[in-house]
């Protein structure tokens, strides 16, 4: 396992982590190692041109760099390169699924099933489709610990179900859903399964073939990569049938006054000048993670999560959302403190130089279902230290007193 000494070495790769604070908002966005920052810089200083258009050396290098990043992303999730569409972020990927696949395949009276714990980015696009098409949006309910059962999905599925959309790991609960079984259930009714991998792909090996999901969305910036790059995976056969989403340069074959024919997959879905620099950054990020090993980072994150949750259990009035088993959290520890509003928790922790997040975490319906207005969330990456955890626990243990409570 990565130990504290190795962590110190790893942290030297991350310029921002030299600061005197505990960065525990990794589920919102991670920090970037120098190799990623340099990959972006390197693109601009050595192969900057418009990829795919030029006929000169520089542009060829730009294209190669871009397509290499695509192959790297494909390898990372066990897809084929032409099943990888680069987008801006997971949100755009999910909108692509909604606008392109769903708008073409959902009709009035059809049903879409969405988990109640979904991030707004995997809920609002489906609300939009349901409204536009007169389809019904059904919510799959989780228990008070955020657990979904196959039985409850099967109870909702019908021959009218066209789409099932669920995150592999919720950004509030942290638990891993049994995507493989859920996707199989969806397929048994001929529905497609859309997997939101924004919180899973950074933290565990995700194999789209093994899971047999139809679509997978994730963001680079949550896995060490730059901010402007995300991935939309789709099964080749589906991508080929789908109409385009964004229209413009580079996604066409022929254009006439009357209409157009489309470029091959995946280019059909990449309209306009692509973000080749940030794609190169994503490639470097994946290589960085692969060099350490996803098993090692996961084990490290698990260790730190355990430390954090043990510390929290010793503090009265603190309540953790989800499972009491740290291995079911994937670095995400969402909590409340009796009598202290989550925003006050975050602000006071900030004064102790602990960076956490508070609010609804883009999951208002989940909060409503749990009967809580808002929560605080600490989220861990493999580069966090045990000292980060102590700093968090120390701050947490003084919170109520600083707000005027006796204990």
């Amino acid at each position: 396992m990565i130990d504290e000494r190795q962590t110190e070495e790893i942290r030297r790769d991350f310029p921002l982590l030299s600061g005197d604070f505990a960065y525990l908002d990794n589920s919102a966005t991670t920090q970037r190692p120098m190799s990623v920052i340099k990959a972006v810089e390197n693109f601009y200083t050595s192969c900057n041109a418009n990829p795919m258009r030029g006929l000169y050396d520089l542009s060829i290098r730009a294209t190669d760099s871009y397509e290499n990043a695509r192959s790297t992303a494909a390898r990372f999730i066990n897809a084929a390169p032409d099943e990888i569409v680069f987008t801006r972020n997971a949100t755009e990927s999910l909108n692509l699924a909604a606008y392109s696949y769903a708008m073409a395949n959902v009709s009035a009276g059809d049903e879409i099933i969405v988990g109640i714990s979904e991030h707004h980015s995997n809920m609002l696009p489906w609300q939009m489709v349901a409204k536009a098409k007169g389809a019904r949006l059904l919510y799959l309910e989780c228990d008070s610990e955020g657990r979904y059962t196959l039985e409850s999905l099967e109870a909702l599925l019908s021959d009218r179900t066209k789409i099932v959309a669920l995150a592999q790991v919720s950004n509030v609960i942290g638990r891993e859903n049994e995507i493989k079984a859920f996707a199989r259930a969806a397929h048994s009714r001929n529905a497609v399964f859309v997997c939101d991998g924004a919180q899973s792909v950074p933290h565990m090996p995700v194999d789209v073939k093994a899971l047999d999901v139809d679509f997978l969305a994730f963001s680079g910036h949550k896995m060490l990569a730059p901010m402007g790059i995300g991935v939309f995976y789709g099964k080749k056969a589906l991508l080929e049938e789908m109409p385009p989403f964004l229209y413009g340069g580079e996604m066409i074959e022929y254009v006439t006054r009357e209409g157009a024919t489309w470029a091959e997959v995946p280019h059909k879905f990449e309209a306009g000048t692509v973000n080749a620099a940030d794609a190169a950054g994503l490639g470097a990020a994946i290589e960085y993670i692969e060099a350490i090993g996803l098993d090692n980072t996961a084990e490290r994150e698990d260790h730190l999560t355990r430390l954090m949750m043990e510390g929290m259990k010793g503090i009265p009035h603190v309540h953790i959302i989800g499972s009491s088993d740290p291995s079911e959290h994937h670095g995400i520890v969402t909590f409340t403190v009796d009598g202290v509003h989550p925003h006050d928790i975050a602000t006071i922790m900030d004064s102790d130089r602990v960076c956490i997040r508070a609010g609804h975490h883009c999951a208002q319906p989940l909060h409503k279902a749990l009967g809580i207005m808002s929560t605080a969330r600490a989220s861990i990456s493999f580069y966090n230290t045990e000292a980060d955890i102590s700093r968090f626990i120390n701050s947490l243990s003084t919170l109520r007193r600083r707000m005027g409570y006796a204990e």
Partner: protein
Amino acid sequence: MQNNTFYNEILTQHNMDPYHKHELDDADFSLEGVNPSCGDDIILNLKVENGVITNGSYTGDGCAISQASADMMLDLCIGKTKEEALRLADIFLGMIKGTATDEEIEELEEAGVLKDISHMPARVKCAVLGWHTLQEIFRDEQAAAAKPGEGIRPANVCHM
């Protein structure tokens, strides 16, 4: 940036032991103020006689800053005329924007502890929620008129 001096005794006191957090049956005005990003939600009630705020209260939920700020605001405004209250609101908002003078901030008395909130943009809305709701009541008195018999739930909501 990180000296959050506003979580001091004054603020926690107003949050833990508010003077004005209660219902007000004979209120003339009642308006809900909501800060969606935070989930803060208060209902501000005012009794106004001959242009003077003779009584006021609030109820609701939210972070310490929103609650304490509303409590401190009522401390300051009860007994003042509508015009004086609105002038104080201007000063408070000016303090947050960094345009108020030290003398002006003096006039805010305890509410001056929220001066440094301007460094925390995400919390600014919490601090100004009460004041903003006060301004809204006087901006459209008709909409904010308390409707007897409808309970304390005001008909109108002002969003931050």
